[in-house]
């Protein structure tokens, strides 16, 4: 090979596009030709300079700027044709604020987990299951199931790490009174992180709990979540420890179901219940012991950002993983709060999942061990555990709050548990048949419950009414910026306008367990202002005539006056 031929092939050589024989020919020429070697060095230097500049430019924040402008220009186009132009503009301004976005993102994440839970509760449901997020989580859960079927007893250890956050997310930098409400709500939300956590009850059903994790002050802290499972008998033990001290446990020894809880004063309580006659241990241990437990969801593609393969990487031990991102887009279409999943290439299980809000990691859950053992280190009956429980309540500690979600409750149950006046349609909307009420924790308002009443309609125009302390406290300011659509004789004001498609999408998605269908394109949302000063949120999965809307609102009565059930 001469210099001219070498130079001609040098770029292809640098780009690794040459056949082995050509490569060898070039290399042997380079070994003997200093000018060509110098040429190669210069070529590589220029290539590196180009690549470095490319990297710098790729870091620009054009993405958000462009999407914000698209939203802006789209809404100004809309303004030309819409009568409620002022409301939209105002909403847009409010929703543009960083704070509001994060509050919205937080609210959305609350919903996403809740839907997941109800779906796993309602496994027999015949909702559409072909959606990407659902498929992704189900596949991971099925893959994880295999880990529990090793010879003998399987021992799995997961670690939950809570990171300190900078506080930037919740600092109300604009300080405008309009935003105060959402800032307050968000601050409440950020006082603790949480993850869904299932336990098994004596009747074999799952109980849907909430593992509350206090904010980390300056250093991250971790929880050790340890399980043993015997696939031959279905016996299991699960123990959660913080600072080497047990704060929650649940087990089954073939005859009894045990749970160890800590009373508010910190004293341990071991509850032993004989299993009921129709008890059978849940078939898939991954659904209550695994990393994916409680995450299954069939949220529609309309509201959930696509599950997106983000990149590839490796775990600390070098195992290759796919990195997948999934979450709800907020009202401006941005994915400010999401989960990043690391899925092992070899067995398809989720090895790590990280929850991120506004680029800041909040939580990391990862599997640190999975192996077969001869016997569990904790007895199936938890007998020795009460000794290991820490007493006292001086500092905020992780805690398992039972009954994060109670599906299918009665109107009377709702009245007894609610800390505010609740309302219900009486009679049911004439076009909507089956009704279901779900009682769940109101995450931004500790100590309060949230009620979701969903009506499934034969014609697809399902109705969802959600009432919560958080809504009562925060929605008023936003609602009154909207458009007053109707004032009913029974004293309700109906507010419309704003991003009703977005929040009706969320309300309808959160009730998928009852209504089954995905939110439709012509769905509509309203914020109601009740005579008691509460702010129930209403979503309808379709269009209503004015007359239908009026008669629906006119039929609202205080739930305590309800005569049915």
């Amino acid at each position, binding site marked *: 090979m001469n210099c001219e031929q070498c130079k*001609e092939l*040098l*770029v*292809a050589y640098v*780009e690794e*596009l040459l056949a082995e024989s050509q490569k060898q020919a070039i290399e042997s020429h380079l070994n003997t030709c200093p000018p060509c070697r110098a040429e190669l060095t*210069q*070529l590589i230097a*220029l*290539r590196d*300079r*180009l*690549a*470095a*500049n*490319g*990297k*710098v*430019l*790729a870091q*620009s924040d*054009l*993405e958000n*700027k*462009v*999407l914000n*402008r*698209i*939203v802006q*220009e*789209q809404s100004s186009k809309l303004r030309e044709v819409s009568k409620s132009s002022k409301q939209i503009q105002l909403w847009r301004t409010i929703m543009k604020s960083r704070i509001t976005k994060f509050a919205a993102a937080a609210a959305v994440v609350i919903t996403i987990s809740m839907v997941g839970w109800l779906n796993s509760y309602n496994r027999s449901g015949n909702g559409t299951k072909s959606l990407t997020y659902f498929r992704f989580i189900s596949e991971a859960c099925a893959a994880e199931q295999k880990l529990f079927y090793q010879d003998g007893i399987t021992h799995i250890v997961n670690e939950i790490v809570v990171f300190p956050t900078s506080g930037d997310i919740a600092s109300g930098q604009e300080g405008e009174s309009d935003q105060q409400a959402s800032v307050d709500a968000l601050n409440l939300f950020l006082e603790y992180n949480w993850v869904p956590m299932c336990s098994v009850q004596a009747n074999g059903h799952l109980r849907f709990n909430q593992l509350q994790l206090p904010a980390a002050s300056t250093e991250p802290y971790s929880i050790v979540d340890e399980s043993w499972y015997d696939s031959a008998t279905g016996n299991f033990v699960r123990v959660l420890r913080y600072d080497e001290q047990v704060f929650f446990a649940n087990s089954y020894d073939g005859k009894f179901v045990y749970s160890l809880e800590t009373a508010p004063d910190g004293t341990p309580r071991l509850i032993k219940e004989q299993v009921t006659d129709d008890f059978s241990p849940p078939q898939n241990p991954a659904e209550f012991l695994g990393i994916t437990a409680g995450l299954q969801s069939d949220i529609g593609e309309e509201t959930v*950002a*696509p599950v997106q393969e983000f990149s590839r990487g490796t775990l600390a031990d070098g195992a290759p993983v796919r990195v997948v991102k999934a979450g709800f*887009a907020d009202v401006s*279409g941005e994915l400010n709060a999401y989960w990043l999943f690391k899925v092992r290439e070899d067995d398809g299980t989720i090895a790590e999942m990280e929850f991120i809000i506004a680029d800041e990691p909040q939580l990391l859950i990862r599997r640190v061990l999975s192996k077969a053992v001869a016997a569990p280190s904790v007895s199936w009956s938890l007998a020795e555990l009460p000794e290991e429980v820490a007493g006292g309540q001086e500092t905020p500690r992780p805690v398992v709050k039972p009954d994060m979600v109670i599906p299918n409750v009665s109107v009377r149950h709702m009245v007894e548990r609610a800390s505010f006046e609740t309302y219900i349609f009486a009679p049911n909307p004439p076009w909507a048949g089956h009704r279901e009420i779900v009682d769940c924790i109101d995450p931004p308002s500790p100590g309060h419950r949230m009620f979701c009443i969903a009506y499934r309609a034969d014609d697809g125009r399902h109705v969802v009414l959600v009432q919560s302390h958080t809504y009562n406290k925060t929605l008023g300011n936003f609602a009154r910026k909207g458009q007053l659509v109707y004032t009913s004789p029974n004293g309700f004001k109906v507010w419309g306008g704003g991003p009703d498609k977005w929040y009706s999408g969320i309300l309808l998605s959160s009730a998928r367990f009852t209504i089954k269908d995905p939110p439709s394109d012509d769905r509509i949302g309203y914020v109601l202002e009740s005579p008691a000063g509460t702010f129930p949120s209403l979503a309808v999965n379709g269009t209503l005539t004015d007359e239908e809307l009026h008669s629906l609102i006119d039929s609202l009565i205080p739930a305590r006056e309800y005569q049915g059930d």
Partner: protein
Amino acid sequence: MGVADKYYIERCLDGHPDDFRYLVRRYQAVLLAHLAGQLGNRDTAEEAAQETLVRAYFGLEKLKKRESFFPWLLGIANRVAKEQQRSKQRRRRIGDVLSEAVASPELSQDYALERAITALPESHRQVVLLRYYGNCSCNQVAEQLDMPLGTVTKTLSRAYAMLRESLQQQDENCEVQK
């Protein structure tokens, strides 16, 4: 490069404007490199890139050949750059000499390189932009620009020579000015 531009374009047209972000991610560095050399100022280039992408979004329906998103986008960028230069000249004529003197352009880290890229002939520039700013492999560049792989490496080879010459020229000019 993963999912084709065509897929995201169709998603956008199908009522998922949020998917435009993937195209922004893919082409933002390409556009910035393309525009920074022409406009000489990082801020102006960013503005122009933003304007280009927004116009592209609202013009997606007009793009008949969805596979040709990239050259189409560069075409829009060229128009936007020309408009910006014209309006800058107008402002200059109005005579804001003082502020002109005060405002020192905030150049990106490697303005010399960006200017050298701008000076490349169109076909060479496209290859360099896709390869180094669009994160495409040579094979992907070939696919994207519908040319044989051999032509891509030859073009890249010539582009390298031109870039080096242009960078050397700029260095010499710099020396002279000093």
